[in-house]
C-alpha cells in the first residue's frame, strides 16, 4: 500500500513544476507555523482571560458578601438594639414604643418585629397585628431554634409570613431572625423569643442585579444545602430547572470545577459570616472563551491575510529561483532537438548560473565535436573516393599500356609480359576485394609492382631497394599508403636523375609502431614548400596515382589517431625522407580497422 502510494506520489511529483513545489512547500510550512503559533497564542490568551474572569468574579462575590453581611449585621444590630436598648433598658422605655420606633426606622427592610413568650403568646408586635387564629408559633422552626440554642441568633430559610392577620391579602416572603431574650418583668414572664422578619425582597435586591457574565449567576445556599436565594428558585422548587446546590454547599471557599448536566462550570464559593450560608457564583467555562463566531472569523481572516502575503512572497522567491532553471531546461531541450545555436543565459543563483555556463561550454564543445565528426567523415569519404578513384587511375594505366605497346613493337615480349604481369598484380592488390586494411606483405608487393613498371618507364633512371623486416610482413597496414609516397619520390625525385637515382623503401618496427620509410636522393624539397606541404596547404598533385601525401597522412590519422601519420624530412640537393607511422597490429587481430 505504501509502495503504491509512493509510486503514485513520485509520478505526480515528476509532473509538477519545481516552482510550484517550492511555493507549495514554503506556503504549507508557513501555514503550519501560523496555525501552531495561532493556537498557542489563543490558548494562552484564553487561559489568561479565564484567570482574569475568575479574579473579577471572586471580587464581585466578595463585594456581594460584604453587602449581605452588612445587611445581616444591620438586622442583628436591630435585634441587639431591641433587646438591650428596649427590652433591657433601665430607662423604662415602653417596649411597644421602642419596637414601633425601630420598625418605623427600618420598615423598608423589615416586615415585622414581634416578641413572644416561651409558650408562644404574642407579647408585642410592630406593626401592630393580631396572630392568625390557630397559629402555634412554638411549632415553627425559628421558634424552636431560638429556644434550643439560646446563645445564638438564628436566621431561618425564606418562607411565607403566616403569623399575622393579613388584611391586604399579601403573602410576603420573609427571612426570620429569632433569638432567645429575657422578657421585662412587666410581662410577668422570664424568657421569650424575639422575632424580626426581614423582607425577602431586601435580600433579593442584593443578588438580583449581580451578573457574572452572560451565562453566569450567583445564588445563596444554607449549610444544609437548601436554597436561600436563586435566580431560578421557583423553577428549581417546582422541578422545571435543576441546580447543584446540595453539593455546592459542601464545597470549601474558593474556586471549584464541576460538571453539571453536561456543562463544565467554574463555581466560586464564599462563606457568609454569622449564618453558615454560602454564596455560590457559577460561570460556564464557555463564558471566558474567545471562541465567539466573530472572533473565529477574525482569526480566520488574519491567518488568510498572513497566508496571502506569504504566498505572494513565496511566489516571487520561487519564481526568482526557478525561472533561470526553466530557461536552462528549455535551452537543454532545444539542444537535445538539435538546435545548437540556441542562447543559454547565465543568470540566477550561483549554482544555476554556473550550470548555465557549463551547459553553454558543453554546447560549444558538442558543436565543435559534431563539426569535427562531420569534417572527418567528409575527409574519410573524400579519401575513400580518392582511393577508389586511384584504384582505377586511367593515367597510370594508359602510360603503362603505352610502355607495353612500345615493348611489343620493339620486340621485347619478355619485358612486356613483365610489365603486364606487374600491372595486373598492381591492380589486384590495389583493389584487394575492396578491403581498406591489407598485410604489409601485400602493400610491399603492390609497391614492388609499381616500381617495376615505373623503372621501365623511367628507362632505369633509378634503382630501388627494399629493406623490410621479416616480422612486419604479417602486420596490418592501410591499403595504398606506401605507393603514393613512392610515387612522389619517383615523380619528383627521380625525374631528373641520370641513372644514379636511388629509392629506398623500408619497413620495420620501432617502439611497437610500424614504420614505413621512403628515402630518395632526389633534389629534395625547398624549405618554404616543405612548410607548405607540412601545413597541408599544397594540393596533392595529380601526377601518378593522384592520391597524394596529404591523403595518406589524413587516412592514417583518421584510422589510428593523431599520434600516427606522416613525417617529411627533406634537404635540398640531398634528398627526401618520408616516414609513415602506424600502430603495430597483427593482420586480423582485434582493434584492427577493417
Amino acid at each position, binding site marked *: 500500500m505504501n509502495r503504491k502510494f509512493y509510486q503514485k506520489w513520485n509520478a505526480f511529483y515528476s509532473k509538477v513544476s519545481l516552482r510550484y513545489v517550492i511555493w507549495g512547500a514554503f506556503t504549507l510550512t508557513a501555514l503550519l507555523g501560523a496555525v501552531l503559533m495561532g493556537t498557542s497564542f489563543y490558548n494562552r490568551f484564553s487561559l489568561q482571560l479565564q484567570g482574569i474572569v475568575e479574579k473579577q468574579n471572586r471580587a464581585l462575590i466578595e463585594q456581594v458578601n460584604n453587602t449581605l453581611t452588612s445587611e445581616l449585621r444591620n438586622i442583628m444590630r436591630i435585634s441587639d438594639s431591641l433587646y438591650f436598648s428596649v427590652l433591657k433598658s433601665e430607662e423604662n422605655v415602653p417596649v411597644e414604643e421602642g419596637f414601633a420606633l425601630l420598625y418605623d426606622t427600618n420598615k423598608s427592610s423589615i416586615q415585622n418585629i414581634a416578641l413572644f413568650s416561651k409558650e408562644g403568646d404574642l407579647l408585642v408586635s410592630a406593626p401592630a397585628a393580631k396572630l392568625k387564629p390557630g397559629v402555634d408559633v412554638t411549632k415553627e422552626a425559628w421558634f424552636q431554634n431560638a429556644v434550643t440554642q439560646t446563645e445564638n441568633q438564628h436566621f431561618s430559610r425564606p418562607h411565607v409570613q403566616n403569623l399575622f392577620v393579613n388584611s391586604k391579602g399579601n403573602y410576603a416572603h420573609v427571612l426570620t431572625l429569632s433569638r432567645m431574650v429575657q422578657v421585662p418583668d412587666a410581662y410577668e414572664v422570664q424568657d421569650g423569643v424575639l422575632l424580626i422578619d426581614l423582607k425577602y425582597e431586601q435580600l433579593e435586591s442584593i443578588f438580583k442585579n449581580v451578573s457574572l457574565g452572560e451565562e453566569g449567576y450567583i445564588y445563596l445556599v444554607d449549610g444544609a444545602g437548601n436554597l436561600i436565594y436563586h435566580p431560578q428558585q*421557583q423553577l428549581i422548587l*417546582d422541578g422545571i430547572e435543576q441546580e447543584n446546590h446540595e453539593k455546592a454547599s459542601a464545597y470549601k471557599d474558593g474556586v471549584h470545577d464541576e460538571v453539571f448536566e453536561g456543562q463544565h462550570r467554574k463555581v466560586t464559593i464564599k462563606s457568609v459570616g454569622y449564618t453558615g450560608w454560602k454564596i455560590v457564583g457559577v460561570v460556564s467555562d464557555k463564558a471566558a472563551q474567545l471562541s465567539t463566531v466573530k472572533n473565529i472569523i477574525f482569526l480566520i481572516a488574519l491567518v488568510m491575510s498572513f497566508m496571502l502575503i506569504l504566498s505572494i512572497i513565496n511566489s516571487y522567491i520561487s519564481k526568482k529561483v526557478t525561472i533561470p532553471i526553466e530557461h536552462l531546461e528549455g535551452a537543454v531541450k532545444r539542444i537535445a532537438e538539435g538546435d545548437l545555436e540556441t542562447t543559454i543565459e547565465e543568470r540566477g543563483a550561483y549554482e544555476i548560473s554556473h550550470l548555465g555556463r557549463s551547459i553553454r561550454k558543453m554546447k560549444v564543445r558538442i558543436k565543435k565535436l559534431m563539426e569535427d565528426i562531420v569534417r572527418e567523415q567528409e575527409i574519410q569519404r573524400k579519401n575513400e573516393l580518392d582511393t577508389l578513384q586511384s584504384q582505377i587511375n586511367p593515367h597510370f594505366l594508359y602510360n603503362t599500356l603505352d610502355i607495353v605497346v612500345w615493348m611489343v613493337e620493339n620486340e621485347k615480349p619478355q619485358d612486356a609480359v613483365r610489365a603486364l604481369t606487374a600491372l595486373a598484380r598492381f591492380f589486384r592488390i590495389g583493389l584487394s576485394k575492396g578491403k581498406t586494411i591489407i598485410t604489409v606483405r601485400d602493400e610491399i608487393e603492390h609497391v614492388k609492382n609499381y616500381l617495376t613498371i615505373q623503372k621501365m618507364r623511367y628507362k632505369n633512371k633509378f634503382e630501388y631497394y627494399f629493406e623490410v623486416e621479416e616480422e612486419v610482413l604479417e602486420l596490418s597496414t592501410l591499403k595504398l599508403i606506401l605507393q603514393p609516397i613512392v610515387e612522389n619520390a619517383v615523380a619528383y625525385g627521380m625525374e631528373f636523375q641520370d641513372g644514379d637515382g636511388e629509392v629506398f623503401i623500408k619497413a620495420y618496427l620501432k617502439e611497437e609502431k610500424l614504420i614505413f620509410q621512403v628515402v630518395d636522393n632526389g633534389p629534395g624539397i625547398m624549405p618554404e614548400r616543405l612548410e607548405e606541404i607540412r601545413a597541408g596547404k599544397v594540393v596533392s598533385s595529380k601526377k601518378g596515382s593522384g592520391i597524394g601525401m596529404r591523403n595518406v597522412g589524413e587516412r592514417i590519422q583518421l584510422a589510428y589517431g593523431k599520434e600516427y601519420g606522416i613525417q617529411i624530412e627533406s634537404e635540398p640537393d640531398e634528398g627526401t625522407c618520408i616516414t609513415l607511422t602506424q600502430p603495430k597490429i597483427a593482420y586480423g587481430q582485434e582493434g584492427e580497422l577493417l
Partner: protein
Amino acid sequence: MKKAEKIGIIAALCGIILLFLIASTDFVLEENRKEVYTIAFVTDGSADDRFQSLRKGMEKAAKKWNVDLVVDAPYLSGNAAEQEAAIEEAVENGAQAVITVPADQVQMEKFLDQSKLQVPVITLEKELHSEKKFGAYIYDSEKSAKKLARAVLEEKKDASVALYASDVSAKETANCLDILEKELEDGGCTVIRRQYRQGFEIEGEVVVAADPYTFSQIVNLQKIPDRLYGIGCSNKMLTLLEEGKVCAAVICNEYDKGYLSVEAAMKSIQNGTRQRTVKMEQVLVRQENLYDKEYEALLFPIS
C-alpha cells in the same frame, strides 16, 4: 504573474476584506443581537389577582426568552366577542403568538377557524379543537371533580349542592360537571346545575364552582356562600380559605402554567412546534394544610 494567479490573489483579497468586515462590524453578522418577541396574553376578563402567580411565571419565562409580554383583557368580564377583538388587535399590533384563557370555548374555536390569524395560539384552562391551536395547559377535569366531590362528601354526605359553571359548552367544564354530579349523587347529595351569570345571586347550601373563572368571580362577591368549593386559585381565594370561608379548592401550579405557556409559545414562534395538551398536576388545599411546606411553593411562588 499568470492570469490565474492574479485572479486568485484578487479573489483571496476580496474574501479577506469581507471576513474582516463581518468580524469587525455588524453589517452581516450581529452576534449579540437578541431578537425581541412579542407575545400577547389575553385573559377572560376575570379579576387580576386570579392571574397573579400565572403572570409571575409568564414574566419569568419572558425574561429568559426575551419576550415582550403584552397583557390585555376584554372590558366586560367573560365576554367572548370582546376577547376575540382583543386577540385580533394584539396580533395587528405585532404579537407573534397569543396565550389566552377562552371565555367561551366553542366560540373561540369558531373564531380561530374562521379568522385569518396566522399566529400560534396557546390556551389555558380550556382545550380547543382547532388547527390554530398550538398547545393547551388545563386542569384534569376528572381528577379535579373527584377531589372536590370527595372534599364535599367528607364534610357532609347528604348536602344540597349547586354546581356553578360559566362556559358549560366547554368540554372540560362539561366533563367536570358530569363527574361531580355523578360522584355527589352517588354520595347521597342532591345536585343542581346552574349557569353562572354576572350579577345573579349564588344560591345553594353547598356551592361548587366547576371552573376557575366562576370560582374567581364568586370569591370576589360581597356575599360569599357559606360553604364554597372550587377549582382555581387567587390571592382572594387563599385569604378566604385561610379564614375558613372557602372550604377547599383544587389548585394547580399557576406559576409553572404561566412559565410553560410562554415557553410553548416561543417554541411555536421559532420552530412551529405544536405542544400536546398538558394536564397540570393539582392538589386539594384546605385551611389546615394551606401553609404546609409541600404547598408553599405552589401557592406562594417566589419571584
